[in-house]
């Protein structure tokens, strides 16, 4: 494995499975029922140049549960970025301060750029509309937890497929495990052509449609996403598609029993609160799984073996 995680291409399928196994082993540590200070003495830099709740907090939780510590960039408006400091200079400084860094940035390609500037491992926590591979690890963990496997599932990805970096990384990974992908979006938010082309070349079976409700009965996973207002060039374009998909408990009546509904969160109106109580809802467990997935990843990147079985 590379010493950074920028896109899912940095991991082989075997490495993904190994990380998911490590994550599973770390569940009691994340739940606080076992103390396992594997990363004691290690310092994580949380470099979030864009708002984040779950990703930033779960990185911090993961490091602290494993006995390490965290320094945060803090509010980007009070950092040197507003004084015009380049990402290169900021990351060179962090390279000296810390042992590993998680980076989120509004510009696409920022994570690879930072990785080229630093010796410490860089974890991409989201770069513009590019990639979000640590989210993909926790998504895969959640899917495997529910279905007992990754291979051969039918996964519907719904909503903002154009700007949604979580679905970009996830679709690449799912294709590698021979999943069938159903891309559901309005035309103006469809999956970028280069991603569809790459997936097609890798032999993935893909369907593109605007119809969410017709896809529900056959799906093993419905992965909802928020229409991201902040990525639209203007308000009018956003207004045309805002609220286009709304999943309710009644819509799930014809779904397979083991089908799960996922969402990277935050949600706005795309999943009705009445879905929360259904057996299909997995988005809160999914958010929790961010802790174990990131624990496993940091151990791997820092060269620390996770003991299997009882520690």
């Amino acid at each position, binding site marked *: 494995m590379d010493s950074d995680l920028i*896109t899912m291409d940095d991991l082989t399928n075997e490495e993904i499975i190994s990380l998911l196994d490590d994550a599973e082993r770390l569940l009691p540590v994340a739940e606080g029922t076992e103390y396992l200070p594997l990363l004691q003495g290690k310092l994580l830099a949380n470099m979030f140049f864009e708002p984040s709740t779950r990703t930033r907090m779960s990185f911090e939780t993961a490091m602290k549960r494993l006995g390490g510590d965290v320094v945060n960039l803090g509010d980007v408006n009070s950092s040197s970025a507003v004084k*015009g400091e*380049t*990402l*290169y200079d900021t990351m060179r400084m962090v390279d000296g301060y810390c042992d590993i860094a998680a980076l989120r*940035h*509004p*510009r*696409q*390609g*920022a994570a*690879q*750029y930072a990785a*080229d*500037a630093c010796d410490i491992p860089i974890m991409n926590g989201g*770069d*513009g*509309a*590019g*990639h979000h591979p640590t989210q993909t690890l926790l998504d895969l963990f959640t899917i495997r937890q529910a279905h007992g496997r990754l291979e051969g599932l039918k996964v519907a990805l719904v909503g903002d497929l154009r700007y949604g970096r979580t679905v970009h990384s996830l679709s690449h990974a799912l294709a590698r495990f021979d999943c069938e992908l159903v891309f559901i979006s309005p035309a103006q938010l469809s999956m970028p052509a*280069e991603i569809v082309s790459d997936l097609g070349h890798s032999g993935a079976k893909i369907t593109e449609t605007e119809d969410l409700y017709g896809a529900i009965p056959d799906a093993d996973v419905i992965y909802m996403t928020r229409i991201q207002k902040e990525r639209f060039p203007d308000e009018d374009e956003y207004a045309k598609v805002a609220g286009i998909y709304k999943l309710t408990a009644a819509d799930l009546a014809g779904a397979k029993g083991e089908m799960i509904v996922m969402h990277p969160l935050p949600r706005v109106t795309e999943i009705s609160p009445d879905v929360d109580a259904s057996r299909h809802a997995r988005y809160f467990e999914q958010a929790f799984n961010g802790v174990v997935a990131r624990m496993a990843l940091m151990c791997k990147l820092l060269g620390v073996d996770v003991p299997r079985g009882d520690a």
Partner: protein
Amino acid sequence: MSAGEMRRVTAINNGTVIDHIPAGSALVVLQMLGISDDRASPISLVMNVPSSKHGRKDIIKVEDRELTQDELDRLALIAPKASVAIIRSYAVAEKREVTIGTELVNVASCTFSNCITINPREPQDHRLNVVKTDPLELRCRYCGRPQVMSELIGNLI
């Protein structure tokens, strides 16, 4: 180059001849190579001449300058099939190939408006990965976006 084509341009004593440039691209090639019209020695430029291989082509002759392999490799972006001859004392002393390799470093900057490299103060190299050579397909090393060739010409460094 046939004898007929040769008559269009004067033979040079020393320098570089770049042949088989796609028709209409010679001015961009000069821009890419950083060859401007304020130099002391002449530059001969012939555009849109008939070519048995490519239908139409451009030719450039740069006197008193031997282009380096690094300079020539930049040509691959717009003239991947160009043939290059180094001339010494009116004779072809060397023939050089244009090769593109796997990456273009500091030849052009990414055309995507939200790429991290769009900030001119970011100091690291501009890197474009060569995904395919025929037809040429490039993607930014950082943001991964495919590059549209017509836009990339405007981003030459």
